[in-house]
């Protein structure tokens, strides 16, 4: 397996690492992430890609102890199921929160954080994580 991150690959992924680009079907209105060429629900190819504001609700979460290699610096990791306000769902790590303060229904916002590092002299990959909205209540 590749033991180093590829700069060209990380650059190719910039749209999904540094922002949340989601799809909405113009035929049936279904919103989904990541975008596909055709609608997950109705198969129409009339898809509109938009950038999410990154605000949403933590629908479910789990505390992950069996963390994969290269992500162990932050073990245990909170993996969240976030429903963004635009109506689609995505997975993401939840940060800046104590496990005891987690609640289903918590308002969260997307933030740009370090995802993983390639050794001591290699690439640093940044991407989207979620944190509770400052001053936010429940959704």
């Amino acid at each position, binding site marked *: *397996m590749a033991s180093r991150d590829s700069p060209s690959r990380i650059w190719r*992924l910039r749209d*999904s*690492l540094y922002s949340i680009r989601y799809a909405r079907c113009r035929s049936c209105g*279904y919103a*989904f*992430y*990541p975008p*596909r060429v055709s609608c*997950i*629900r109705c198969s129409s190819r009339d898809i509109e890609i938009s950038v999410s504001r990154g605000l949403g609700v933590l629908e*479910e*979460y*789990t*505390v*992950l*102890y*069996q*963390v*994969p*290699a*290269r*992500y*162990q610096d932050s073990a245990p*990791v909170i*993996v969240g*199921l976030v429903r963004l306000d635009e109506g*689609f*769902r*995505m*997975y*993401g*790590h939840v940060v800046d929160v104590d496990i005891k303060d987690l609640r289903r229904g918590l308002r969260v916002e997307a933030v740009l954080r370090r*995802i*993983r590092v390639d050794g001591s002299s290699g690439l640093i*990959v940044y*991407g*989207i994580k979620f944190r509770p909205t400052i001053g936010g209540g429940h959704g």
Partner: protein
Amino acid sequence: MGERRVYIGGGGAIEIDRHYDKGYKALALEAIRRLEKSYGTIEPDTLIISSMSPESMSEQIGIAGVIADYLGLKRINVMRIEMGEASGLASIAASYSMIASGVSRRLLVIGVEKVVELPTPYIVRVYSMIGDADYTGIYGIPPASEASLIANLYMDRFGYSYEDLFRWPVTMHRNAVKNPHAMLRFTIKSDSYKDSPVVSDPLRLLDVYPFGDGGSAIYLTSDPGDTAVEIAGIGSSSDAQDAISREDPLFFSAVREGFERALRMAGVERDHVRIVEIHDSFTPYAYIILESMGFAERGDSPRRFSPDSSSIYRAYVNLSGGLKARGHPWGATGVYQVYELFQILSGAWSHVDVGDGYAVAQNMSGAGAQSYSAILRRVR
């Protein structure tokens, strides 16, 4: 239709375990030795290797060629089939087509996987490759975390407690005691989860399949010979790669469609199925699969499944112990399922008798992202 029928001539399998002393070649060799012990000398014209991770775990590309060379199988057609965790039944499906079309007359399928080769975080890293590398892969969302989120959603929506769902692992372990090649041949109790480490809350180690190496071989022929078992139907389907981008993450449409396609091809109704082997990689998936296959209404399978007889509706389920206790050597698992059902239908497991009922294997990848079903029947 002019197609040839596809018979299972014989099978063999190694115990699923941490075989530190065996790599891919040795695992495949042992599977063949056991197949030949019961069947006799095989002379395949084709070798299909079912394997998920030789590149990522063992730095081996072209594994089918290397294994054919090692086994001394000369001048035959060789290929490796991969569809994540569903590689096993995907390989059986491809093999079925080769025999049915007449391209092959005697086909050897070997499911073989080396899983326990690195420390757990690296095994988890490889296993995570079944998800979209550009999404759940790079964001560090391993399959166990997806299964845990689904477990929480399932318990919330249908009103079950963790203990309600834990009846599944308890039954699987009890079944595995009678399966000679199962990895975890010990019983557990309804409160054994208390001593089991949390993998991703609420799922504990006992809710998750164990990491183990395996090798299982099936010999398919177009000539019935002394055969007792036939593959009557194959079906598969696919869905969005991650569960939560689908409309309903708690129902696996790919599982339903794959099963229904196999039933149609075999000309069989669900009521004729007497035994199934399903892909219970994680506790919640067992229930969702049973519901997706139509053995219970959505949310009802924990109530409908009978732990005492390990059955639901009219069918026994996972008498092998399932992925949970028999084990899950990734690309080899679907071939183990077919081997177990072949053993049962040919009378080799004396504690099980399903008469003339049909047997179904169901093998999927991820949370129902792709699913294959194979239907077997006794022919004599």
